[in-house]
Structures are given as structure tokens and as C-alpha cells.
């Protein structure tokens, strides 16, 4: 039993799922579901189809190079069954999987970080420029309790000085 990769979307194909297409030059294409199969029949290039792993890797959306990928390389030589080896492998698979998914999500987080900072900057600018839409500027000036959220009032030091003589 072997878990294959879908040719189109690169997800794992479990046994009993999907269709295998054997081309006349004996190249085998495995698909995880009919969606991928139909896209293939439409002659779509997975590198141009946005939801596939091929596209995401090509356009830097997902992690491409990492040492954890080495563990998943296809090996054609079957290993002789050794109980210890099998046990250790199963434990390792879990751990490596966790490391890989953590690194992948970090990659995505880092990629999205610049966008977040940008959005905050834009939001602050919009607030400063557009506060007149929310409250009339005259009203702001007159009523001092209404203030822009970014203004901080430092009271802590003065309060401490006042409290000390009282306690005595």
C-alpha cells in the first residue's frame, strides 16, 4: 500500500480513492478526485490553477525548501521489517509532521506580516484625515473629553508624588 500524490493538486491519494490514468507512453497520472481529473482532461496546467500546491509553491505562497521534505522522498527499496525501526519511524512521522506544518504556517505568517503593518498604517492615516466625518472638528476642540484614541495622558508619576505625603 502506498500513499500517492495527486498529479494536479498534490494532495495525498489514499487507497480506494481517485482515478489513475495511464497514458500511452506509460506515464501514470494519479488524481485524488474527479475535480482534478476533470481539470486534467481540460488540459489545464496546474501551475496556473490557483488552488493547487504547484501554483502556490511556484508563486512563493507556500514553503518550498525545507529539510523536513527530505524525509518524504520516495524510496523504492523496501525495508526489511524491524519492529524497533517501525516504532521509531511512526514516532518520527508525527514529530516531523508537526515541525513541517509549524514551519509552513510561520512562512505564511511572515508573508502576511508586511500586509498587516501596511494596513495598520493606512488605517491610522485614514483616522487622522477623516475624523471630521465622525465628529465635527469644532465639537472636538470644545469638548476635551472627546479625543482621538492615540493621545495618551501620562498621569502615573504625578499621582505617586501626591500619595506619599498623604500616607505619612
Amino acid at each position, binding site marked *: 500500500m502506498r500513499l500517492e500524490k495527486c498529479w494536479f493538486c498534490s494532495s495525498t491519494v489514499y*487507497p*480506494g480513492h481517485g*482515478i489513475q*490514468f*495511464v497514458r*500511452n507512453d506509460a506515464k501514470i497520472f494519479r488524481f485524488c478526485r474527479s475535480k482534478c481529473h476533470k481539470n486534467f482532461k481540460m488540459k489545464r496546467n496546474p501551475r496556473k490553477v490557483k488552488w493547487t500546491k504547484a501554483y502556490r509553491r511556484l508563486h512563493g505562497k507556500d514553503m518550498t525548501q525545507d529539510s523536513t521534505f527530505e524525509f518524504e522522498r520516495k524510496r523504492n527499496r523496501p525495508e526489511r521489517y524491524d519492529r524497533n525501526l517501525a516504532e521509531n519511524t511512526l514516532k518520527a512521522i508525527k514529530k516531523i509532521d508537526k515541525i513541517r506544518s509549524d514551519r509552513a504556517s510561520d512562512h505564511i505568517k511572515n508573508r502576511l506580516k508586511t500586509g498587516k503593518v501596511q494596513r495598520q498604517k493606512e488605517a491610522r492615516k485614514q483616522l487622522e484625515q477623516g475624523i471630521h466625518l465622525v465628529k465635527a472638528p469644532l465639537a472636538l476642540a470644545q469638548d476635551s473629553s472627546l479625543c482621538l484614541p492615540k493621545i495618551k495622558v501620562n498621569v502615573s508619576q504625578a499621582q505617586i508624588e501626591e500619595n506619599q505625603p498623604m500616607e505619612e
Partner: protein
Amino acid sequence: MGCAIVVHVYGGTPTEATPQELICIRVIGASNCRYTYIGDVIIAVIKEAVPNIPLEISEMIRAIIVRTRKELKHDNRMIIQHDDNATVIIDQEGNPKGTRIFGANAPKLRQLNFTKIVSLALE
């Protein structure tokens, strides 16, 4: 169940000294059989022939189906589909008439003891 080469449908042949197109007439071993899969022996008539071959148009021959465009479901629930419909022309005992076989072949042929075909096939 499902359908593969419906009787009266053209199939190409991948052996060396072969015609280009056959039409399937009947299935051997089953009466009133509508559909055939990979591994079934059929009686076929040659519709189109490549010149300089011992076989001519409208000759009746036996052939075994090796590839179908219709998916074949295996026992281990694997579904395999090929690119075309193809047969290998055989004689009464099941030995291929040609000397070379092109294209991929299904593992089912080995199960059915068509060893000569399997050994000639490259892929």
C-alpha cells in the same frame, strides 16, 4: 456492470504486424455479452489495415483487449484508465500473432496467464 469496448466498436491494435483498426464482433466465452473489459478475448474483424501485412481487411481474427478508455476497477479498489482502446491479435491458444507489443499493458493480463504477451510488452 459498467461498459468497456462495446461490441461493434473500433479498437486499435498494438502488435507489430498488425492492422490499424478492428471492430469487435463478439466476445468469446460469454453469450449475449454487451461489454468487455481488459483481458477478454474477442472475435474481431479487420476494418483498416496497414499495407504489407499477412492480415487483410475483412479478415476475422481473435484478439485480446489490453487497454480500454473506460476505467477498469481493480479488486483493491484502484481505478485505472488508459488513453485508447487497444487489442493484441492472438491465435487459438492465446499466443500473440505479432512479435512486438507497443504501449502499456494492464497487470490483469498476467493474472489471466497471457504470459507471452506480458513478456513481450515493454511497459
